[in-house]
């Protein structure tokens, strides 16, 4: 037997009007829609055969952060599968607090781009296995990149964005992925601004290019609309894990259905 491909549901958690934590699902990182209570959702996923669980704090405020650490604690008490928590992590103290609350890994996006040394410090203090670097990539069809791939006959490079896709950085995703790995990142989350919420499949050229550039495990994210999309990202792009939000939240497909489909198509999964 071999290492199985992981199916990972992800929830974005914000505060609702009353200041209570709630799960939201969006399109292109915008237009968020309320989909449920984070702790209840985590419990349901734990029981449904999810291989891991990712929890992103999108509140981006000090008040939100306190509330979220409390939610992380409650989720960690219910979930006996690995838990990754991301959102607003900028210092080693943030990493420590999040791990102390019960996370197994932290996902860092902007904080690492603004200060790459955070990856080095985090890996040294807590181990590479808990440092996940998350990349919000967007396609650019100009001359400013370093590594190009062909997409439908056009030459494209991938730019790292920050602040949830709202700001470009000019940094080539493949350069950044290699640097993050060299600094001790244990895993890479690859999000695509172009594919987020579209449900028309993962960004396969992006995922493939990152998988080729690093040896660190790669988790494909953004764009999953069906078990077939998972199949494509495992077989065509060699991703180690597939992350999805809305197809599971809205009960379009269950995790079990997704895994059964993959198993029938010879993709190794934990059933």
């Amino acid at each position, binding site marked *: 037997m071999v*290492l199985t491909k992981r199916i990972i549901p992800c929830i974005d958690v914000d505060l609702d009007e009353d200041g209570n934590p709630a799960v939201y699902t969006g399109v292109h990182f915008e237009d968020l829609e309320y989909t449920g209570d984070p702790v209840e959702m985590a419990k349901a996923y734990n029981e449904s055969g999810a291989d891991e669980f990712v929890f992103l704090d999108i509140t981006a405020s000090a008040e939100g952060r306190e509330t979220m650490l409390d939610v992380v604690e409650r989720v960690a008490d219910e979930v*006996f*599968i*690995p838990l990754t928590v991301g959102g607003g992590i900028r210092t080693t103290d943030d990493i420590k607090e999040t791990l102390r*609350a019960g996370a197994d890994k932290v996902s860092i996006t902007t904080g690492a781009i603004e200060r790459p040394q955070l990856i080095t410090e985090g890996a040294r203090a807590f181990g*590479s296995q808990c440092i996940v670097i998350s990349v919000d990539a967007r396609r650019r069809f100009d001359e400013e990149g370093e590594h190009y791939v062909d997409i439908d006959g056009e030459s494209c490079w991938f730019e790292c964005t920050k602040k949830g896709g709202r700001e470009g950085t000019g940094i080539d995703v493949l350069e950044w992925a290699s640097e993050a790995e060299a600094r001790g990142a244990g895993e890479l989350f690859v999000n695509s601004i172009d594919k987020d919420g579209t449900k028309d499949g993962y960004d396969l050229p992006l995922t493939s290019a990152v998988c080729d550039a690093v*040896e660190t495990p790669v988790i494909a994210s953004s764009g999953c609309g069906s078990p077939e999309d998972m199949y494509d990202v495992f077989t065509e792009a060699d991703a180690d894990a597939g992350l999805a939000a809305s197809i599971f939240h809205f009960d379009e497909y269950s995790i079990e259905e997704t895994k059964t489909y993959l198993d029938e198509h010879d993709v190794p999964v934990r059933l």
Partner: protein
Amino acid sequence: MSTVTSDTENARAAVVVVDYGLGNLRSVTRGLERAGADVEITADPDAFAAADGVVLPGVGAFREGVENADPIRDELLAVTETDTPLFGICLGMQMLLTTSEEGETDGESAVQGLGLVPGTNVRFAEGQKVPHMGWNELTVEREHPLVDGVDGKYAYFVHSYYAVPDEDGATVATTDYEREFPSIVANDDGTVFGTQFHPEKSGETGLRILQNFVDMCADA
């Protein structure tokens, strides 16, 4: 250091989770509680001696783990002179061995593990995806109470080094990641053992292993 005691009623055994300043102790505590243990998270050596079982958890680097645990080294070794089970998880398991490639700078200053299961921890080969991260299968190689009911099941791994005991007999279960490696090891009399994977993160299979451990503690 703070001491946290759970309030599990009708617990089958009193288990100490050793707090030597590394990692997430919450999940392993909740897992053990669900498995029927009354759990105390502490670095107090007196508690080790009083417990029915001791868990040495851990994530992170070998050198840091060993150095952090150094002040309680003798007390941990004393646990193994009784029948009290000592259960190392992940880095905690690697620390049961003698040395690790991860801790080495040169021969002179190699970091010494607890040496309870003689052997060394080595890194996965170049060109392999490291860390070995995810769900992989357990193949039970020999009898041990810890592995009752888990042959062929999946467990969650996150590690870049793996244990190579000097004696083949120390291997209780193996897992295949481009090569077969020991995923559960134990000493000769079976009271010191460890899992490379995280039972507290391995869903139902992991809970079964924690229950087996609590059973051993209750019987000891």
